[in-house]
């Protein structure tokens, strides 16, 4: 029965946490800028406003892509351990997670492709290029973890870490964790990798045509993406959590760290971003994989 | 000297063949080439005859009385040579005929200039 509850609870917690993190980020960013900043619940106010507005739709694809994207992100939260709870632990493990992670960006991509806005197209092309950039090290990292622990199940990964110590604290995986930290801002879409939704150049990119409820959905999706990115890192590298509270605390710490980077950096051009991502993080991650294989992982 | 005596025909024959071949190789004029062919054929005919020749043999005709003891040259090469001569003449005639026609087309019989078909 408790298991069934978590089928509902996981996505809800993810949503709430994601939105709160967004609010936190705005507040924290303001404080770092020496501003007062909005209330921490400002994203909720925004969401209420979006939902009460009337939006323009560019057709079926425009709507359905967004829905698919949000649904995909919601489903993904079911695969990620939240503390000791993982609603869908037996459906394919990390490989499925990697692939379901695609649904979010792809849905947005279809949707904004359907909008026929050139800014959106540019944003999507940047998003995909950036994804290509960080997926290369990310895949190496995930493979290292899977090879190191000899399992493709994320639940197993968390269990083994809780028994044997965090991945970030064991030697070859340390490198992977390092690489992961280096690419985490890119996964979360933060500066210096904020090339996708570059408001100043391409009018916030993929979401340019979303208004009203559409924008609300995409904001929710963004919140979920943040949650998922952090959750994956915590689960893979920081040993997950023995219960949800610890888990969320770890997420918070990681997020604040990322935020500090976000606050003080300008951003890369997309090619600079890829060049960076394919150089240092990929090298470190590759070193981690090679060492893991050599050490008989 | 005995060598010469014994092989005179062969030397002559191959000499003629070589002369013919050299003519073919070194001359450019079609008529001269044909002449070379003729010389070569003559040489070959001589060679064939020489094979069947026995020193001081008589013509290979069996006299009525059986002619025991008479040494005759081998008749077969002579038969061959007859055929070969006929063939040679046929080829020669044909070659000359064609040379005339060729001259009509090219206005020359210099084989260095009749080189449209190559490669």
């Amino acid at each position, binding site marked *: 029965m408790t298991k069934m509850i978590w089928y509902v609870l996981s996505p809800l917690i993810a949503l709430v946490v994601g939105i709160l993190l967004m609010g936190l980020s705005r507040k924290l960013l303001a404080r770092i800028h020496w501003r007062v900043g909005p209330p921490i619940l400002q994203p909720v106010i925004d969401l209420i406003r979006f939902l009460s507005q009337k939006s323009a739709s560019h057709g079926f694809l425009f709507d359905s892509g967004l829905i698919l994207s949000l649904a995909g992100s919601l489903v993904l939260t079911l695969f990620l351990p939240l503390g000791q709870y993982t609603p869908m632990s037996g459906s394919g493990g990390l490989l499925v997670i990697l692939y379901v992670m695609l649904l979010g960006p792809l849905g947005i991509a279809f949707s904004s492709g359907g909008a026929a806005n050139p800014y959106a197209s540019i944003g999507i092309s940047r998003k995909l290029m950036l994804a290509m950039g960080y997926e290369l090290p990310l895949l190496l990292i995930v493979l290292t973890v899977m090879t190191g622990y000899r399992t493709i199940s994320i639940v197993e990964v968390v269990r083994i870490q809780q028994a044997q110590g965090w991945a970030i604290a064991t030697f070859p995986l340390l490198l992977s964790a390092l690489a992961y930290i280096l690419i985490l801002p890119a996964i979360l879409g933060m500066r210096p990798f904020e090339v996708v939704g570059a408001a100043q150049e391409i009018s916030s990119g993929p979401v340019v045509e979303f208004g009203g409820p559409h924008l609300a959905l995409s904001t929710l999706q963004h919140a979920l993406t943040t949650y998922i990115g952090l959750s994956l890192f915590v689960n893979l590298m920081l040993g997950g959590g023995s219960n949800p509270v610890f888990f969320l605390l770890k997420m918070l710490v990681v997020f604040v760290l990322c935020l500090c980077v976000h606050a003080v950096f300008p951003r890369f051009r997309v090619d600079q971003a890829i060049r960076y991502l394919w150089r240092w993080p990929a090298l470190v991650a590759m070193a981690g994989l090679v060492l893991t294989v050599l050490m008989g992982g | 000297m005995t060598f010469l005596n014994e092989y005179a025909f062969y030397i002559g024959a191959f000499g003629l063949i070589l002369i013919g071949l050299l003519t073919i*190789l070194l001359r450019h004029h079609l008529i001269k080439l044909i002449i070379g062919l003729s010389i070569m054929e003559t040489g070959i005919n001589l060679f064939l005859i020489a094979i069947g020749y026995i020193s001081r043999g008589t013509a290979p005709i069996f006299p009525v009385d059986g002619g025991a003891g008479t040494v005759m040259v081998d008749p077969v090469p002579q038969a061959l040579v007859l055929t070969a001569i006929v063939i040679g003449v046929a080829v020669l005639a044909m070659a000359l005929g064609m040379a005339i026609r060729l001259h009509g087309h090219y206005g020359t019989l210099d084989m260095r200039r009749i080189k449209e078909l190559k490669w």
Partner: protein
Amino acid sequence: MTGVEIILAAAFAGALLTWFIGRTSSTAGSAFAVAVLLALTALVALLHGRVYETVFYRGFLGLPMSLRTDSLSWFFAMATTVLAALSGIFSLSYMKDRKNTGFFNTMLLLVNAAMLGVVFSGDLLSFFIFWEIMSWSTFLLISFNRGQGVNAGLKYIVMSLVGSMAMLVGIGWLLGAFGTLNIARLSELIPSASGGHQLVLLLLFGIAFGIKNAVMPLHTWLPDAYTEAPSPFTAVLSGMLTRMGIFGFLLILYVMAGAARVLHSPGSTVPTYNVVLAWLGAVTIVVPTFIAMLQNDAKRLLAWHGIGQGGYMILGMAFGTGMGLAGGIFHTLNHAIYIVLLFMSVGAVQHRTGGVRDLNSLGGLARKMPVAFIGALMGISGLIGVPLTNGFVSKWMIYRTLILGGAPFLAFAALIGSWGTILSVYKFLHNVFLGQLPSKYENVRSSPVSMKIPILVLSFAILLFGILPGLPLKVIDGIVVSFGLPSLDVSLWGIASEAGTLNTVNLFAALAVGVLVVLAFVRILGRSERVGQDSNYSAGCGVPRDRYNYTARYYDPLFRMISPYLKDFFSTLYDGLARGIGSLCEAVRMIYTGYVSSYVMYILLFISAMIFIHLTWNPW
């Protein structure tokens, strides 16, 4: 006559009859061709579960030619006929207003018949004969479109001949060594051959099958051929014909060399061969996938993916555990389904836009051609391996095998290939169907019914096999078991094995609920009004439609980085080789100078050289 013989006879007779019917009326010919293909599908379906071998012809040089059917043959034959039938239906309207429809139909049927012959042949001689018929009829079809197709066809047939000749040597050697070409007999005899001999044999056959399957250094024929062939035939070519290479590899590695040898004898050369093959497969995944990103021609882009996806099959098959093998075979089927679908969608677009397939000049056709768009969407989803499409399941199986089999680098190649795929196929989808609709395509009509049917059927198949992968996997499990490998734990919804399970129905249910929740949420709260594509924010200016389509140089920043490294090195190499041979030939023919004395000199030189050699060294 047994079932297989009837099928083959019907296939070849059908091809012949199509020609004669097509002479009288091209419409009747096309209809007849489709009827034959459908009938063949039914006949092949009837063959399910039968395993036997029958000698059908003794008249060839004293070697009995036989046909054989088992689960492997049936699986490939079924896929072949179904896809050919769908392509046939598709071609009904595609070829309608073109010249030489009769020829096209005949050749399509002939190719299909030859492919059936290849999969059903019970000895290597008939295998080779059908293989060659397949090759030359393919050549004629690739050249069919004229223009660049002529060069593509020539490239194809020359490379194909290289493969065939290698295979011929292999067959000749087998015949010399064992005195039989029967596959069943050979599978008993080959293990007794020495390792070196086996390696040579595998190399020779590997060249043939590698060329057909476009494994990386031997792939250069494929992009041109796929691009230039008529779209319905490109579908057949990409779907099953190219994958006859996979069938061949399965035949030599698992049927003839034997799975037990492939997997469990560390000393022999076969496993090494496997490893090399697997690495080739990995290279074949990565490089073509990235090259595909650079393409601006819809069919060419898909063609490069055809190469890349072939790498997955090779990888899964060569790695060789039960699940990898099943994944490889399943991927063959899945790839066939979605690539056929994609080429059909492109074909439909070409049909309606007047042959345009340049990605930079299309756009926004999703509104005009919804069915083609659905086809393309499902197709690229399968190609990427989006969960709940068929491609996901087979890729999952391959990844799992590689990761748990201790080959993370191969797995990395496979995974990064998938991510590269996303980029290029999204570009394909976006530039053809999404974005602004150029005004010249304002009046494009939806695709004709005979194109819609196969597209919808295949789209459905992608979802069906993605949600219930057990349907085909049961058959594939039978194949794996017949190779002597342990059975997989297949259920209708996926795979439950010792480490890591896959449950697609679960996933489907979750996603469906997710979509429903979001949909309900949106329905309650959302009120939106439709606006046209002109109502787009572009800094407050109106959208000048034809100049405002962001399609050209879609991934330019990335290209500037990677394109210097993505030269198709082997293509250049082979072209250079061909040019070199050409100039060598030009040089060689200079010995015929045209000067008669030199000719005579050759004769005399020959004679005198021989005599000289004889007198000097006396070698004879």
